[in-house]
């Protein structure tokens, strides 16, 4: 066999990001998903979710190569069942309290409510941690897996300390809560031998919130699209990537107008299709966010090395959904 490699160039890939998904393709997946979920009374949900994620990841490209989501419906189903079990017990305790209290004796209700609240607040950090571990381990690009190195103990510490400070400052510290939690989560993310970190400052976020709040009132709500844009950009622009001692960062150029068009468009699609257009909402959103996002710096997508071990545990993947934690 005669082999010639002269025509194949070994160019360095540019670290460009792209989203190639189409609403119609996603719709053709979701229509089957919804039908199967109806037939199985919702039990198909983990498989439906896996199919969705497979598609979204596969259509998201870095340097021309797609991401891959390796998670399976079966893995997530086991997590889903465990999650439902834990939540059912918690809600059972709460309902027990509601049904067994009397106006004269509210004690039982408050005890059950306390158990419920404590249980729920124990679950949130655990769900975040479990979801990050599972989701990153199931994400790969050119065969290189992402990973999450965070410790559950440290997640609890960050979560409760910041929650406490947020409560005693009547919510003002909430901005630092957000940035510190992102520092903990993103700071523990790996992409092969590249490490992520988050540099957002709570003070800056608080200023964005104050500015957004007052300008939204003054402009009768119109500024809210710019406020939301600022929050998205604040999230993305503060993500740093360190690779072999060199730093690069993500940069989002999303504008208020773009965000206004995106949000109003999504709203109209949802209303006029009675929710059936949700697939287009997803692809439009992904498209807008990712096409405004670039990697600035010396990130070299050809120089990533595999560092992660194999990990399979999907217990908290769906728990995060059930608790409605929309973080990543």
């Amino acid at each position, binding site marked *: 066999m005669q082999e010639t490699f002269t025509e194949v160039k070994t160019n360095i890939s540019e670290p460009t990001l792209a989203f190639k998904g189409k609403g119609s393709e996603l719709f053709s997946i979701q*229509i089957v998903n919804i039908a199967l979920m109806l037939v199985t009374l919702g039990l198909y949900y983990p498989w439906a979710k896996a199919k969705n994620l497979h598609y979204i990841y596969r259509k998201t490209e870095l340097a021309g190569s797609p991401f891959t989501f390796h998670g399976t419906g079966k893995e997530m189903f086991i997590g889903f069942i465990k999650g439902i079990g834990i939540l059912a017990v918690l809600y059972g305790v709460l309902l027990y309290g509601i049904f067994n209290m009397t106006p004269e004796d509210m004690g039982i209700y408050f005890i059950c409510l306390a158990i419920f609240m404590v249980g729920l607040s124990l679950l949130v950090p655990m769900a975040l941690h479990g979801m990050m571990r599972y989701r990153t381990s199931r994400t790969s690009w050119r065969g*290189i897996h992402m990973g999450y190195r965070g410790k559950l103990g440290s997640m609890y510490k960050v979560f409760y300390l910041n929650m406490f400070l947020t409560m005693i400052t009547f919510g003002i510290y909430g901005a630092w809560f957000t940035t510190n939690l992102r520092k903990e989560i993103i700071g523990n993310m790996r992409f092969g031998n590249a490490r992520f970190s988050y540099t957002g400052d709570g003070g800056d976020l608080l200023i964005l919130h104050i500015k957004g709040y007052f300008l939204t009132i003054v402009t009768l709500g119109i500024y809210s699209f710019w406020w939301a844009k600022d929050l998205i950009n604040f999230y993305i622009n503060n993500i740093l990537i360190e690779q072999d001692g060199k730093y690069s960062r993500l940069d989002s150029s999303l504008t208020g107008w773009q965000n206004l068009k995106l949000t109003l468009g999504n709203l109209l699609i949802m209303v006029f299709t009675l929710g059936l257009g949700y697939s287009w909402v997803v692809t439009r959103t992904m498209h807008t966010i990712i096409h405004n996002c670039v990697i600035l710096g010396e990130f070299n997508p*050809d*120089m990533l*090395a595999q560092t992660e071990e194999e990990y399979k545990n999907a217990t908290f993947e769906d728990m995060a959904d059930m608790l409605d934690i929309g973080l990543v």
Partner: protein
Amino acid sequence: MFEGKFYNGRTSKGMPAFIKLEPNYISISWRADDESGNELWHLDQIHTTEFNDNTTVLEYGGFPRQSIAVFEQGFKEALEVKYRGARFIRSKYDSFQKTGVRGLVVGGLSLLVVAVVLFFWGVPALAEKAASHFPVSYERAMGEKLHNQFMHGQKVDSAKTVALQQYLGALNIESDFPIQVTVVKNDMVNAFALPGGFIVVHDAIIDEMENHEELAGLLGHEIGHVQLRHSTKAIARSLSYYMLLSVLFGDVSGIAAVILDNASTFHNLEYSRKAETESDKAGLELLSMNGLNPKGMVWLMERLQTESPEFLKFISTHPNTDDRIKEIERQMKNTSYSSESNPVLEAAWKKLKE
């Protein structure tokens, strides 16, 4: 032979590669700057892939997976010809997409129809079915809790409660639940039933009444609610709506949910009007069972006649009173019996009016 990139699973560097499709395996010859190699991929260890991309990506083996990416058109077709029926080219995704725009539109619309049918008939019917199989003791316990909570802070008219209980005792009734009536001091002309047989009557409505047949009709109406388990069914219905919404939209909260939620409220109002009509019928039946004048039901309606205007019918929980009276009179025509006086009931009625 196809040109592509080979990724070895250890680094992200794409190595230029030539890919050859052999009968039982794929052969990959790759070359990087200073090294080169040859890989043989056995078909059974190639992972299932999706093909609707310009780039075809194949993954191989255990963790960490090797992969190839081929940008050349025709690679996908060559794979399908060469390895027809192999596991890794059996796509699970695009089956529906192959139907084209028409298939998607038809599929989407039929899904919408199925959802609407389920939403307005299927799920509520199932929920009601489930509710009617709740154990009587459970419903009684639930009603007792609700009753205790409700009675907190209410002023009970004990004398009238005793009298009403006597009146009830003298009536011939049919119910799965022990009926417990309580008269509370309240100026609103009203009465209602809780699950499990607890009926609360405001003293104002008794003061308004002129004939005891009206009271019998009212009790019949409320016992009808209890017996037909309207409250329990209503709770099951609204719970079922939320469950259906979460199934349909998964983690999508927001607009669609709000729209459907409002739709369910309107539908529930219509349901509750249907429930009132059913209970009116039950009231009429109680009068007939006890040989009381069926006119009692019409008189009762006249007491309840409020000034709520006709156009509010659509958003009201009760049907328009004139409509109720018409319906009752229609049913009265179908029943004929001679009403007689009942001294025990009349004695209890006198005590109530004292």
